[in-house]
């Protein structure tokens, strides 16, 4: 037994090493930001508009995403139709969709020359602009409406079918069902969903970079980039990073605190029939909501594919080398994420979530400040981007692996202890075989997130190379829209392919 006890300590040791690495990589830059920040009092006044816009767009995005998600989730919860499963799966797609690709699709639909404005033009209505606050919020709703829908849908499915049966036998009207069953559920689910979306939108960079415009529509993340790229004012960049740290950190803490679970008690797990909403009007309304939501999601992606196919032939060679760089970065950062996530999931899960509170631009600024005096930050761009991407995917991986690992410990931990399996043996023969599916899934997420990321690379990239999202942004900037569309399609395909590759790898011939 002595050997077992020793080896368990070793396993714990691995966890603490991972926690130490994560903490150093995230908190080191934060300390650097603190040291370098300009005097807050002098500068804050000039940044008030930036702070205000950051908050306003995040609040609007969260509110609209959640408000629009309620009817969609309700319709999905009480209707059965062909393709329902596909649609719900599709709701998960925006999570691994590269932001800049989505922006390109949204431009094709909502831009001045896009589908919607052409339709409005026929109807004689003034065209709407996609730039500024409305564009930023639109893109955020595009990304977060599906997320909110999934969260709320889970809430609906958490209400036992027996309750609805009881409501029906009591001859309750839809209004009463809403008041007694649905509203309490929504009340417990909505604040958490809204807070999560609010926190995500606070750190919005790529959307604000492409659809924001000028001082009126600048998020703090974007202002950090501008301080680097427009003024090369490191003091101001650090000061802004500090602001972002306070806001995003606060929001992340609040989101974790607000997300209170609800308890309706258990029911039989089956598709719920809803007697009170069998009326024709309600059916038509639900159908309309589902069609609209599906169009909102599918139309931009279709436009990306269509214009991308036309642009494939017009892509310069730089797009292919950028694709190579991006795949390389994605693979390396996925490895780092998985190693750290395995370590943290064992003993120190909470450290994995630190990346939610510290935004990529804050880490990027801090790393730049740390590296700049001693080495050329641009020469270290590749490892820096790999690391930041890995840290940003970590919360999701830890979230997936943590519960699975605890379940394995509960089921097999004592047996493994009795067999003296610990350390590497425990990892190799117990954890890895049983974790294969969740590991494949979270590696897929990490790879796709890294592939599509347009963030810190904008601070560190030299002029002679780029990642695929950055190359695409440069093409859009140089007004080579066809080539950009081709690159967008390539980026979309590679992101999905990487996700599929890892996720599938976790599923095939599982022998444990």
């Amino acid at each position: 037994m002595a050997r077992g006890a020793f080896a368990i300590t070793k396993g714990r040791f691995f966890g603490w090493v991972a926690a130490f690495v994560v903490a150093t990589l995230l908190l080191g830059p934060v300390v650097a930001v603190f040291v370098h920040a300009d005097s807050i009092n002098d500068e804050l006044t000039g940044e008030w508009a930036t702070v205000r816009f950051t908050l306003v767009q995040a609040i609007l995005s969260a509110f609209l995403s959640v408000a629009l998600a309620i009817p969609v989730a309700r319709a999905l919860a009480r209707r059965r139709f062909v393709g329902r499963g596909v649609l719900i799966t599709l709701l998960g797609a925006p999570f691994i969709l590269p932001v800049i690709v989505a922006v390109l699709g949204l431009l094709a639909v909502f831009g001045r020359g896009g589908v919607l404005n052409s339709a409005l033009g026929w109807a004689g209505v003034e065209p709407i602009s996609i730039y500024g606050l409305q564009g930023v919020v639109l893109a955020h709703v595009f990304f977060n409406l599906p997320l909110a829908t999934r969260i709320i849908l889970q809430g609906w499915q958490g209400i036992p079918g027996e309750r609805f049966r009881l409501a029906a036998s009591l001859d309750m009207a839809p209004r009463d069902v809403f008041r007694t069953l649905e509203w309490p559920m929504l009340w417990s689910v909505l604040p958490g969903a809204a807070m999560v979306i609010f926190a995500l939108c606070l750190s919005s960079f790529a959307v604000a970079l492409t659809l924001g415009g000028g001082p009126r529509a600048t998020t703090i993340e974007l202002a950090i980039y501008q301080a680097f790229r427009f003024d090369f004012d490191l003091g101001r960049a650090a000061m802004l990073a500090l602001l972002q740290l306070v806001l995003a950190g606060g929001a992340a803490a609040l989101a974790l605190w607000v997300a209170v679970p609800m308890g309706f008690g258990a029911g039989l797990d089956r598709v719920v029939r809803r007697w009170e909403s069998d009326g024709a009007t309600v059916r038509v309304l639900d159908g309309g909501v589902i069609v609209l939501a599906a169009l909102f999601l599918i139309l931009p992606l279709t436009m990306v594919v269509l214009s991308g196919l036309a642009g494939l032939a017009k892509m310069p060679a730089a797009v292919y080398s950028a694709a190579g760089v991006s795949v390389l970065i994605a693979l390396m950062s996925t490895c780092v994420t998985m190693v750290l996530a395995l370590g943290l999931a064992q003993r120190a899960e909470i450290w994995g979530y630190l990346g939610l509170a510290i935004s990529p631009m804050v880490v990027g600024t801090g790393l730049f400040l740390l590296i700049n005096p001693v080495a050329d930050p641009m020469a270290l761009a590749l490892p820096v981007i790999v690391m930041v991407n890995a840290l940003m995917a970590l919360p999701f991986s830890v979230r997936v692996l943590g519960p699975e690992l605890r379940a394995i410990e509960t089921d097999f931990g004592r047996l493994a202890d009795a067999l003296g399996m610990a350390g590497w043996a425990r990892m190799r023969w117990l954890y890895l075989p049983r974790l294969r599916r969740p590991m494949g899934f979270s590696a897929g997420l990490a790879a796709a997130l890294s592939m599509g990321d347009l963030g810190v690379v904008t601070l560190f990239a030299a002029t002679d190379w780029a990642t695929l999202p950055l190359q695409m942004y440069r093409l859009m900037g140089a007004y080579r829209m066809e080539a950009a569309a081709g690159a967008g399609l390539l980026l979309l395909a590679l992101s999905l392919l990487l996700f599929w590759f890892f996720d599938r790898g976790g599923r095939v011939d599982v022998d444990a």
Partner: protein
Amino acid sequence: MKHLLFAAGVLCATEAVAETPVLTVYTYDSFVSDWGPGPSVEKAFEEVCSCDLQFVGAGDGAALLARLKLEGARTKADVVLGLDTSLTAQAAETGLFAEHGQSPVVDVPNPFGEPGTWSDQHFLPYDWGFLAFVHDKTKLAEPPKSFEELAASETKIVIQDPRSSTPGLGLMLWVKALYGDKAGDMWGALADNIVTVTPGWSEAYGLFLEGEADMVLSYTTSPDYHRIAEEDDSKAAALFDRHYMQIEVAGKLAGTDQPELADRFLQFMLSDAFQGIIPTTNWMYPAVTPSTGMPEGFASPLGQEQAVLLPPEDVPGMRDQALAEWRAALSQ
């Protein structure tokens, strides 16, 4: 670490030829685009220099300077091409630039000194022009004739960010030069006309062509491009009483490992071979009129009585305040 960088290097395949000396020139994006001067200039210079001329697009003009400050003495650039006189004082102050040691005779109207002379010790001009709002005549028949009229109208415009773009900076100084202490008010009045502010000229012009705005901040010579290159006579520049002038310049980095090649490039820049390319690719007036003359159909420049240009040394003292006014007015 090294092999990771090596892998990236192989993927990017930029550093292919080691034998021939490489001259790296940082410039703005539209200069290196397929239809810009970059490809022709590269071909022409490589014919005479037995070197490899590499243009690197690094955003718009003002972002070039930030990029250089960011890279500092480590920069790979030998020459920077695409700053303008609004940035030269600030750029010289960084100490990153070497003196060019040339005394060229140029055809740049010089509001500050003897016509034909060039006094800047660090930077040499390669072209010049006038900023103007460009519109589509078929969609906007009667464009505004002044900033006041523009502000009072419903006309939608796209402009560039003065922190990253030289035309954007020029516009900010244009308004500042005309309205002085009232510049902030003018920006406040213009705010509702501005659809969006882009980081560079390319983005803004692209949005205008896409139909996202009625007018775009560009140059009086932009319609010439559409007329000559595309045989499209629909574009025109809205004429105001006075237009801000832009003189685009290039300079040699002090830390260059190719000082002689850089000097040769700057000489080449003022020769016929380079200057002849400028009008119909960069759509600006060449700094030295080529011996073949200007291409047919190219509009003649505005007179000096219509030009506004702040002396380079006055810009740094004025920029911060003008920028603060600009940001305050446009962030409302």
